[in-house]
C-alpha cells in the first residue's frame, strides 16, 4: 500500500492522470481508483462495471458508474470524449482485447492498461517445473474457473500495439508483491509480475 492507500499499481496509474482530467475507468470495480482520482486530481468521468455488487459499491463510493458489458464495446461514447481511458487488470478477461484497445484510443486521448505478465518467471516455473497451469497472487484462479481468458506477456502486448499502430508512451513493471525494482526494469518480461502501460493512437 502506498500513501494514497491505493495498491501500488493503481498509485502509478493515478500518477499518470493529469489534474482535472476526464477519465473513463473500464471495469471500475468498487470505484476506489476513480474516487481517488476525483478527490486528489479533481478528475471527472465514469466507471463501467458489469458486476452488480461492485456497481452498488461504486455508487456507495460516490462515483458515476454505468452498468456495461465491455465485450459490447464502447459505442455509448463519442470519439476522443475522454483524456484518459483506464483499464486495470481487466484486459485479460475480455472477449476481444484487440478491439477493446482500439476502442480505448478511439474514445480517449490516451489509454492506460495494467495486466499480469504471463511470462513472469514464477509463472514460467510453475508450468515448467510442476507441469501445472500457473497461478500467482495476480492470477489466483484455477484453470477451470478463471475469468482470465486472454492472458498475454509483456512482449505479446507490445507486438500487438505495434500491429495496431498504438504508440506506447510509458511502461512500468512491478514484481514480487507490487514492488518496482531495478531488476524488473532490466528484464521486464521475465521479472515483471504486473505490467503498466500508457499509450495513444500513433
Amino acid at each position, binding site marked *: 500500500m502506498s500513501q494514497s492507500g491505493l495498491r501500488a499499481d493503481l498509485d502509478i496509474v493515478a500518477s499518470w492522470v493529469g489534474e482535472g482530467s*476526464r477519465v473513463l475507468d473500464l471495469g471500475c470495480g468498487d470505484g476506489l481508483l476513480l474516487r481517488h482520482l476525483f478527490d486528489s486530481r479533481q478528475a471527472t468521468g465514469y466507471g463501467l462495471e458489469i458486476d*452488480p455488487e461492485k456497481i452498488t459499491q461504486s455508487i456507495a463510493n460516490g462515483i458515476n458508474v454505468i452498468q456495461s458489458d465491455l465485450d459490447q464495446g464502447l459505442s455509448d461514447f463519442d470519439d476522443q470524449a475522454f483524456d484518459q481511458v483506464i483499464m486495470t487488470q481487466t484486459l485479460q478477461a475480455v472477449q476481444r482485447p484487440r478491439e477493446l484497445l482500439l476502442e480505448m484510443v478511439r474514445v480517449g486521448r490516451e489509454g492506460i492498461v495494467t495486466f499480469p505478465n504471463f511470462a513472469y518467471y514464477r509463472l514460467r516455473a510453475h508450468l515448467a517445473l510442476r507441469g501445472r497451469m500457473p497461478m500467482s497472487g495476480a492470477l489466483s484462479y484455477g484453470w477451470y474457473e478463471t475469468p482470465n481468458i486472454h492472458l498475454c506477456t509483456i512482449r505479446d502486448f507490445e507486438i500487438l500495439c505495434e500491429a495496431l499502430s498504438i504508440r506506447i508512451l510509458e511502461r512500468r513493471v512491478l514484481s514480487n508483491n507490487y514492488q518496482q525494482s531495478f531488476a524488473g526494469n532490466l528484464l521486464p518480461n521475465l521479472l515483471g509480475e504486473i505490467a503498466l502501460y500508457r499509450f495513444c493512437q500513433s
Partner: protein
Amino acid sequence: MAVPYPADSIGLVSPQTAVFDQPLELDSGHTLPGFELAYETYGTLNADASNAVLVCHALSGTHHAAGYHADDDRKPGWWEACIGPGKPLDTERFFVVCSNNLGGCHGSTGPTSLNPATGQPYGADFPLVTVRDWVRSQALLADHLGIQRWAAVAGGSLGGMQALQWAIDLPERVANVVAIAAAPRLSAQNIAFNEVARQAIRSDPEFHEGRYQQAGDRPRRGLMLARMLGHITYLSEAAMREKFGRDQRGANGDYGYNFDVEFEVESYLRYQGQSFVDRFDANTYLLMTKALDYFDPAAEHGGNLGEALANTQSRYFIASFTSDWRFPPSASREIVRALLDTNKSVSYAEIEADHGHDAFLMPVPRYLESFSAFMHGINTGVAT
C-alpha cells in the same frame, strides 16, 4: 396496544389537500380556474428544507405511496418497498412528498371533480393534461410546502419520466433525479397497448361519451378490460409462468368446455380488473394514458434527447429491470446515453429481476441496495 405495522413501515399516515386559487394554464391551451392536489408526506422537513424528496406515481398510482391509512388496511402504499425508516427513501433522513397527479381520481382535481363553471362533474370536459402540466402543478405544491429545491425527484415508470421532466423544466429546483423503469418516450408498441385500453373504455355502452357520472352509470367492463390488458404487459412471461403456469381452478384438471373461469391466470386477471374498477375512474385512465403517449421531451429538440437534458443540473440514478419488456433496459440506456453525451453525473444499474415492469414496486434486494447507495450520497445539509 401493539403497533400493527412492520418496524420498517412509516405506519399510519393521512392524506392532505392543498388548494390553489390561481388559474393554471395547460399545454392544451385550456386554463383551470383553480385546482386541488391531494398529497401525503412522510418524515420531517429539516430547518433549511433541504431534505425533501418528491415521489411521482405511475399510471394508476396515487398519493398514497407508503404507510397505512387505517389499522385494518390490507395493503400499504404503492412504494412501501422503497419508502420508510432505513429504506432507500429513508424517512429518518428525508421528507418524502407524494401527490396525486392533476387529472387523477383520488383527491386531486380531475374528471370526477365538480366543474365550477357548470356545477356538474367535469367528466369528459376535463382538459387533457401533460407531464409538463403535472410538473407545473407540483411546483406550486413545492412553493406551498416551502421547498425551493428538491433533494431528489424520484419515480418509477411514468413517475420516472415525470422526474426527468422536472429536471428539464425546473433545473434549479432538482438536485437529484431517480428514474426507475422509465423511458425517454413511449414506443409505438406501448402507444398501441394504450390505444386498445382506451378503445375498450370508449366502446363500452356505459361510457356515454365520458358523461357516465351524469348518466348514473360507469363503463365498468371497458375499464376492467383496459386494466386486464395493462396488467399482462406489466408482468413478464416468466413471472406469469411462475405464478400461474397452466394451473386450473378445479382440482381434477378436467376441461369444462365452456367460458367460465378455468385457468388461474383468468381468475387473477378478472380479479385485478374488477378490483381496479372499484378504485379508478375511466376518464382519468384515458387521460393518464394520453399523457404517457404525449411525453417526448426530445421532440422539441429535433429528437435529440441530449439537448433536451443539456440544461438540467441534477445528478441521476437510472435503473431498469432485465425482464421489463414494457419499459425495457434499452429505453433506460437511451436516457443514460443522452446524459453521458452531455457529461451529466449519472449512475445506471440494470437489475436482474423476473417480475417484468412491476419489479419497480417489488423489494428486489439489488434494486433496493443500489437505490439506497445513491440516496446515501445525497447531502441533505443541516439535520433537523
